[in-house]
């Protein structure tokens, strides 16, 4: 409003609806008033197409949450509850899957929020754009928790660098660290979350200043190989930084890191500790299939819109398979990891 780009909402109930709209109340997305409020005029009117779209989001979100995330959560949460009683290989296994777990937990929640809102006639903004395919940490933050990162960009980073632009790149560096420091402590007043934020700031500043040399180096190898290497590196870097997201204390995080590459223990033993191995493998298999789907979308092959152009019986069959998998193999735990923040 102070920038003159938005008008004040004087209707208390409309304003309360913006703040308390239940699909997004638990853990976002962080909705902008100029996107949400105009939609209230037509909300609540029954539109079959929108309702069906909402139901499809709900089913897809439920599959992500109950079949993928929840079948991985047991392994991740069990380890972080008492990291000291697990072997190096168990820690390595959790290190490799913990980003998948939080992605499917949070994006599953978001899809269900989007679906519930659509049924009520409201489109809320999506929070994810295939983040596990990011080719840099900067790129990752344009794809992960988009509503929070874009809010921080628009209301913290940009005003800061505009105010201190005379400092040049120094303002950009300080602004980046302040922004990610705030994103870190937004998760909780704990040193672990500050480290999480600082690690993001370090990577983004590094990427900014090395862009020229990285582009030159990437030009010497094939694009597909360079993309693959970049994606693996970003995946591992984010996986490393979220050790500080999951760990209850710096001591826990330190122990996790010290054991990560110790090689202590063996894979048979590690897999033996997984309560339900077939469901764990189903979750990993679903993740792999979904990643190929996302790679296709990334390359411009929109499989989603192709699916929705199929005859109605094909679409019904597709969703019946998803619902069957949710009923047979879903873990119905309704605790969303991000709801605690």
């Amino acid at each position, binding site marked *: 409003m*102070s*920038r*003159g*780009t938005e008008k004040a909402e004087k209707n208390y109930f409309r304003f309360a609806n913006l703040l308390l709209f239940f699909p997004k109340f638990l853990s976002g997305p962080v909705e902008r008033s100029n996107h949400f409020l105009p939609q209230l005029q037509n909300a609540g009117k029954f539109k079959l197409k929108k309702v069906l779209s909402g139901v499809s989001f709900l089913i897809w979100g439920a599959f992500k949450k109950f079949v993928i995330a929840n079948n991985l959560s047991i392994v991740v949460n069990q380890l972080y509850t008492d990291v000291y009683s697990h072997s190096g290989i168990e820690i390595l296994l959790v290190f490799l899957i913990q980003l998948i777990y939080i992605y499917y937990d949070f994006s599953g929640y978001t899809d269900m929020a989007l679906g519930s809102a659509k049924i009520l006639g409201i489109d809320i903004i999506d929070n994810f754009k295939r983040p596990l395919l990011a080719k840099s940490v*900067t*790129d990752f933050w*344009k794809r992960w928790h988009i509503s929070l990162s874009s809010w921080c*960009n*628009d209301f913290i*980073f*940009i*005003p800061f*660098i*505009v*105010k201190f*632009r005379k400092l*040049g*790149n120094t*303002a*950009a560096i300080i602004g*980046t660290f302040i922004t990610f420091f705030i994103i870190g402590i937004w998760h909780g007043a704990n040193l672990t979350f500050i480290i999480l934020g600082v690690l993001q700031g370090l990577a*983004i*500043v590094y990427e*900014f200043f090395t*862009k*020229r040399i990285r*582009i030159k180096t990437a030009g010497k190898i094939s694009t597909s190989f360079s993309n693959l290497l970049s994606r693996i590196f970003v995946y591992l870097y984010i996986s490393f930084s979220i050790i500080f997201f999951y760990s209850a204390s710096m001591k826990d995080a330190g122990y996790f890191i010290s054991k990560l590459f110790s090689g202590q223990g063996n894979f048979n033993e590690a897999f033996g500790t997984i309560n339900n191995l077939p469901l764990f493998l189903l979750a990993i298999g679903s993740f792999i299939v979904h990643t190929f789907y996302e790679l296709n979308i990334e390359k411009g092959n929109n499989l989603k819109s192709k699916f929705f152009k199929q005859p109605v019986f094909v679409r019904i069959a597709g969703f019946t398979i998803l619902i069957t998998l949710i009923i047979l193999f879903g873990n119905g735990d309704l605790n969303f990891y991000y709801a605690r923040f």
Partner: protein
Amino acid sequence: MKTTVEIKEDLKQFILETTFAPADQVQDDTLIFEQGIFDSLGFISLITFIEKKFNINPKDSELLEDNFESINAMTRFIESKLN
């Protein structure tokens, strides 16, 4: 005073030099932030370049990413400050 075409050419040249993006990817209507050609960290260099090159002094409140989203948007903004 520079013509619209000259302003656009100056802006394009700066964007290509700063981002190393292929020339065919940067058109007048390309959304440079949305397409990932420019990122927020580079925004400061873009503002500084425009202030110095065109000798304009925009207010802080005018320095919104929306005014810099494409070469066309920047040209409109620069021309509005020059006139």
